[in-house]
C-alpha cells in the first residue's frame, strides 16, 4: 500500500526525478518564470491548484482553433472530430487511473463528483431508479462513515445526504498525531454502514491512508467505498481497480490540467444501476412531456454540453505525467516531503502536522508557527515570492481536532526544486523573530 515501496508496473528499478530533470521540466511551465516583488516565484501551493505545462495549454488552444464543436450530436466534420477528441480524452484519463472508458464520468471538479454520488444515492432513496437501485437507497438506521480528516468536499455532501434520507453520519476519529484510529474504524464498521468515504491522502496531513485495510473492512460489512483521490491522482501512480474501490473522484486542476474539469470513477455495474443526478440533454434515449428514459453510463451522468476542451487538455496533462512517470514523480515528492518535514520541524516553535520526519508522507506539509497567525506567516512568505496556502484548507474539523483553527501549507509538485524547499525552510525560520515572538507564544 505504501507509495514509496510500490514498484512501477513492469519496472522495478525506478528512481526519483532528480534536480536536473526538474530544471528541464520547469521550462515547460511558463507561469513559473514569473517574479514576485522582484524575486523569483517559489510556487509551493500545488496542493491547491497546479500549474500547466505548455502542452496542456496548446492542446486546449488547438481544440478551439481546429475542432471546436458540440459532441455526440452532429453529423458534420467538426462535430465528429470534437467527439473523437473528447472520447479519446476519456480513454486517456481512464487509462491513467486504471479503469475502463465507460467507467469515467466527467464532472466540473471533484466536489461536483462527490455531490453526484451523494445526490444519486439520494435519488435512489426516493425511488428514482429502475431495477435494483434499491441498493443505493438510504433510510433511517443506515450509516455513512467518513473520517475526521476529510476535506469539506468529502464531508458536507454526506452530511446533507444523511439529512435528506434520515441516515446517520459517523466518522473514524484521529489520534493526536492526526492518524486514523483503525481500531475505531473496525468498531464503527457494522452492518449498518452503507457507504465508506475517505480521502486517499489528506490535503493537510500529507499522510497516505491504508486503502487496503479500509476496503477490506468495508467489504466485510458490504459497504460501498468512495475514495477521494484529489490529492493522490496528481502525485501517486494510481490504479483504482487494484485499489478495489467502488467509486473515486479527482480534479483536473490539481494534476496539471485546466480548471472546470474533474472526474468520477465508478464500477460499471454500479453506475448503470444508479439513478441519474443532473438531467438534461445528451443523457436520454426518449423524452416525453411526462417522463424521460436515460442512457447508460457514462452519458447518463453527463447532462448538457460537457467541458470538452477541458477534457482534451486534461488528457494532455495525463500524458505529460505518464511520460514523466508517476512513480518517479511520487518518489521525488516523497523526498521533497521529507526535506520539508525535517527542515520545518527543526525550527523552534514550528509544529508540522501529520507524519513526522522519516514517516511516509507526500510532498506536502502543513505547519503551525507558535505565536504567529497563519495568515501573517503566509504574508511574510509571499513578500519573498514564496506562495503557500494558509487557513483551514477546507478541513475545519481536522484543524479543530489538532487544536488549531488554521495552518500554513507548503505543497510541491514535479516542478519543485530542492532549493525552493530550502528557501521556504530558511524563510520560516525568520518568521518568529520578525514578528517579535521568541519562546512559544511569548513576546520578545
Amino acid at each position, binding site marked *: 500500500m505504501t507509495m514509496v515501496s510500490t514498484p512501477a508496473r513492469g519496472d522495478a528499478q525506478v528512481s526519483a526525478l532528480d534536480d536536473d530533470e526538474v530544471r528541464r521540466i520547469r521550462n515547460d511551465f511558463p507561469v513559473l518564470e514569473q517574479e514576485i516583488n522582484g524575486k523569483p516565484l517559489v510556487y509551493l501551493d500545488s496542493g491547491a491548484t497546479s500549474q500547466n505545462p505548455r502542452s496542456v495549454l496548446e492542446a486546449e488552444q488547438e481544440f478551439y482553433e481546429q475542432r471546436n464543436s458540440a459532441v455526440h*450530436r452532429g453529423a458534420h466534420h467538426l462535430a*465528429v472530430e470534437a467527439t473523437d477528441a473528447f472520447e479519446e480524452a476519456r480513454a486517456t484519463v481512464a487509462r491513467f487511473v486504471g479503469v475502463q472508458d465507460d467507467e469515467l464520468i466527467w464532472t466540473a471538479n471533484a466536489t461536483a463528483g462527490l455531490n453526484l454520488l451523494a445526490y444519486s444515492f439520494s435519488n435512489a432513496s426516493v425511488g428514482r431508479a429502475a431495477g435494483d437501485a434499491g441498493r443505493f437507497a438510504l433510510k433511517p438506521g443506515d450509516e455513512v462513515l467518513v473520517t475526521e480528516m476529510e476535506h469539506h468536499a468529502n464531508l458536507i455532501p454526506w452530511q446533507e445526504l444523511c439529512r435528506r434520507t434520515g441516515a446517520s453520519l459517523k466518522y473514524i476519529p484521529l489520534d493526536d498525531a492526526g492518524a486514523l484510529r483503525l481500531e475505531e474504524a473496525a468498531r464503527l464498521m457494522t452492518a449498518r454502514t452503507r457507504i465508506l468515504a475517505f480521502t486517499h491522502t489528506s490535503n493537510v496531513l500529507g499522510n497516505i491512508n491504508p486503502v487496503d485495510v479500509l476496503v477490506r473492512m468495508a467489504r466485510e460489512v458490504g459497504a460501498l467505498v468512495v475514495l477521494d483521490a484529489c490529492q493522490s491522482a496528481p502525485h501517486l501512480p494510481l490504479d483504482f481497480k487494484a485499489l478495489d474501490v467502488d467509486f473515486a473522484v479527482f480534479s483536473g486542476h490539481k494534476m496539471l490540467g485546466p480548471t472546470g474539469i474533474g472526474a468520477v470513477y465508478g464500477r460499471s455495474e454500479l453506475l448503470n444501476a444508479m439513478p441519474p443526478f443532473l438531467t438534461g440533454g445528451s443523457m436520454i434515449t426518449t423524452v416525453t412531456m411526462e417522463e424521460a428514459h436515460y442512457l447508460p453510463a457514462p452519458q447518463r451522468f453527463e447532462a448538457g454540453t460537457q467541458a470538452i476542451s477541458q477534457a482534451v487538455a486534461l488528457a494532455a496533462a495525463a500524458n505529460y505525467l505518464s511520460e514523466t512517470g508517476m512513480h518517479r514523480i511520487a518518489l521525488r515528492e516523497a523526498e521533497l516531503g521529507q526535506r520539508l518535514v525535517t527542515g520545518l520541524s527543526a525550527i523552534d516553535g514550528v509544529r508540522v502536522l501529520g507524519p513526522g520526519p522519516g514517516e511516509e508522507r507526500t510532498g506536502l506539509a502543513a505547519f503551525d508557527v507558535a505565536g504567529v497567525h497563519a495568515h501573517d506567516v503566509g504574508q511574510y512568505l509571499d513578500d519573498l515570492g514564496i506562495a503557500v496556502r494558509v487557513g483551514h484548507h477546507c478541513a475545519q474539523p481536522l484543524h479543530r481536532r489538532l487544536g488549531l483553527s488554521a495552518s500554513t501549507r507548503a505543497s510541491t509538485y514535479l516542478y519543485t526544486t530542492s532549493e525552493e524547499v530550502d528557501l521556504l525552510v530558511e524563510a520560516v525560520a525568520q518568521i518568529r523573530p520578525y514578528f517579535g515572538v521568541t519562546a512559544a507564544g511569548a513576546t520578545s
Partner: protein
Amino acid sequence: MSGLDSLYQQLILEHSKTRSGGDLAKLPAAATGTPGPGQGGTGQSHQLNPICGDEITLRLSLGTDGDGQAVTEIHWDGDGCAISMASASILSEMAPGMSPTSLRHTIDHFRELMRSRGKLEADEELLQDAAALAGVAKYPARVKCAMLAWVAAEDALRQAEAGQGVSQAL
C-alpha cells in the same frame, strides 16, 4: 467517386426506398414478447440508435432445410436515415437461407468493417450487396445507422434459437 457518392451509392439509395422486409406485419411474433423455449423459431428484437433516436423492430424466423438450421424470413418495422433503411433492406434480402453460424459470421465481419474507420476491406463475397455500405466506415457518426438492423438481427437470432430450445453455442 466523391466521398458522398461512395456513401450514398445508387444501390443504397434504392434499397432505402424499396425497404425489403419493411413489412413487419407479415411475420407474426411467435407470441407477444419474447418466445419462451420450445415455443417456436421466431425471435424479435427492438433496437434504438441513441444518437438520433431512430428505432427498429426486427423479427427473424428459423427453419430447417436439408443441411440443418437456416434463417427463413426477416421482417422489420422502423424509420431512419437512408443508411439504416438500406442496411435493413439489404440484410433482409441476403439473410434468408443462411445458417445461424454463417449469419453470425457475416454480422461479425460487417461490424468489424464498420468500426474500421475505412481501414478494412469489405469481403465482397461474404457481404454481397452489403459491401456497398463499406463507405459508411469512414463516417463514424453513421456507423450506428448501418449497424442498427444487424444488431437487431443478431439479437433476434439469439431469441429464435432460445425459442427452439437451441442453445447459442450450437
